[in-house]
């Protein structure tokens, strides 16, 4: 592996771009050179978009999805009165919501856990948005919870954990039944597959 002789600032930028999912050294270099060709204003604008994110985008106080920063911030779904508030679809990450929405089948609300139980990564129940899910259900009006979690060991263990936890609440708990290949990442499953999986959901016992 030869190390190119770039200015320090370029090396730092390439290193930073490598933290994007799926971006290795080669792609990061191409991105850095593309950015270098941008006019100064564009670099400023994109830079301030990135640095402004921490003030402009916050977590929805209800479900944990991303939302515009404002007092009592709610995401686009929680703020939409036409959505069915009696069904909650639980996902691991925000990015998974757009995949489900693209299917156009699901009309309920979401709950974003912010990960899954992963003892090997030091991720435990208290690190996830589980209390807020319990609180939403305790507030009433929720009839069904769909667990749209990954099919790997951690995703399945988290589904079992939540199903056990919600057993006493009387809400119907189901998980995605089929269609999502074992070990697949839900963020990238196509919407038809997710629609099929939502259709075929089965109760967890």
């Amino acid at each position, binding site marked *: 592996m030869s190390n190119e002789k770039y200015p320090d600032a370029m090396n730092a930028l390439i290193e930073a771009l490598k933290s994007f999912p799926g971006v290795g050294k080669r792609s990061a270099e191409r991105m850095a050179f593309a950015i270098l060709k941008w006019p100064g204003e564009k670099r400023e604008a994109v830079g301030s978009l990135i640095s402004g994110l921490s003030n402009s985008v916050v977590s929805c106080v209800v479900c944990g999805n991303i939302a515009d920063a404002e007092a009592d911030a709610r995401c686009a779904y929680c703020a939409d009165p036409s959505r069915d508030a009696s069904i909650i679809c639980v996902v691991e990450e925000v990015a998974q919501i757009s995949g489900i929405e693209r299917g156009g089948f699901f009309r309920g609300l979401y709950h974003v856990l912010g990960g899954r139980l992963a003892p090997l990564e030091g991720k435990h*129940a208290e690190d996830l948005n589980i209390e807020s899910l319990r609180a939403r259900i305790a507030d009433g009006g929720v009839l069904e919870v769909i667990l749209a979690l990954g099919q790997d060991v951690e995703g399945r263990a988290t589904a079992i954990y939540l199903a*056990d936890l919600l057993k006493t609440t009387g809400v119907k708990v189901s998980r995605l039944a089929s269609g999502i290949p074992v070990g697949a990442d839900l963020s990238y499953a196509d919407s038809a597959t997710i629609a099929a999986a939502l259709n075929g959901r089965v109760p967890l016992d």
Partner: protein
Amino acid sequence: MLKNLQLLNYRNYVDEKIDFDSKTNVLTGTNGQGKTNILEAVYFLSMLRSFRTASPREIRGIGSDFFHVSAFLNTSRGYDKLLEVDYAETRRLRIDSSPVFKASEFIGSFKAVAFLPSDLMIVTEGAALRRRFVNMFLCSYDKIYLADLNDYANALKSRNALLKNQNPDTDALTAFERILAEKAVAITAKRAAVLKKISEEMARLFREIKGGNALFNIAYTPHPSTENIEAHAAKLAADRAKDAARRSTSLGPHLDDCQFLLNDKPLRAFGSTGQCRLAALCLKLAALKLLGDIDGGGAGTVALVDDVAGELDSETQDAFFGIVSQTEQSFFTFTATPSDAYFADAKILEVKNGSISNAAGAAI
């Protein structure tokens, strides 16, 4: 069958390409020239594991930071398939130039069985080597087994990690133990079924070689609660305090064992070296036979025979060649060209210090 083999920085092979056009291939050469390394490379393409080391880094040639193995496979369906493995920092797999991300989709493109001098230890040493054999065999016998095994290992490590905490989260433990129990039951059932088949095939071979009163069988001893998911999960839950103290999980297929019995006596304790050697050979022959039966008539199987075939008595040799001749292709190593008639039509390849030439001496 493999039509060629290409090696880059593979042990003592810097850049070597060998063509195979024969069903039976013999690698000859004095010790330390690189015969076993060729068998290892073929095995690696089949199983993505070495039979010599658990650490693929050891394979790359001294001073290099990667190795490459590839081969054209002529499948029984008549088309060629290019299999490629690159091992640098990470492993990259390709079939016909398309990347393959899951090992389970690469493993078993052809089914290799290696006959090695160290096979004796499967019979005579501890349980870990027997579990390793069964695991490797099942990975090429059953496509889903590797996923079961990986999930099991992950759930097991997760449970052990949870138990390390001062106050373990019992609800999280219940969740991971449930998955652990599901996988334990699945793995145990698969091992039991396959060991029964291997046992029957080995018994047949023993009768053929040793005569009618040689009674061979394998006794598999799974952990008691592994027939039932609920019972196994309950047992795991009951063992939490004990397991937390030992810092490991004391129940499950990661600890099971099987015994090789001849006339009801464990070979490991009572067998002569000759009997243990024969059992090891029959074990691998049984594996080869079962893999060949999947698609029928030995299709897709490759036998890799390292320093084993030379010293067999005639009954054993008959049984051995009887099964090996059914494979799609075989590779043998010898220090000198074998005189046995079995090798009359074999392709003889001379191995010398990391390069290979055909017996006539011309470079290939």
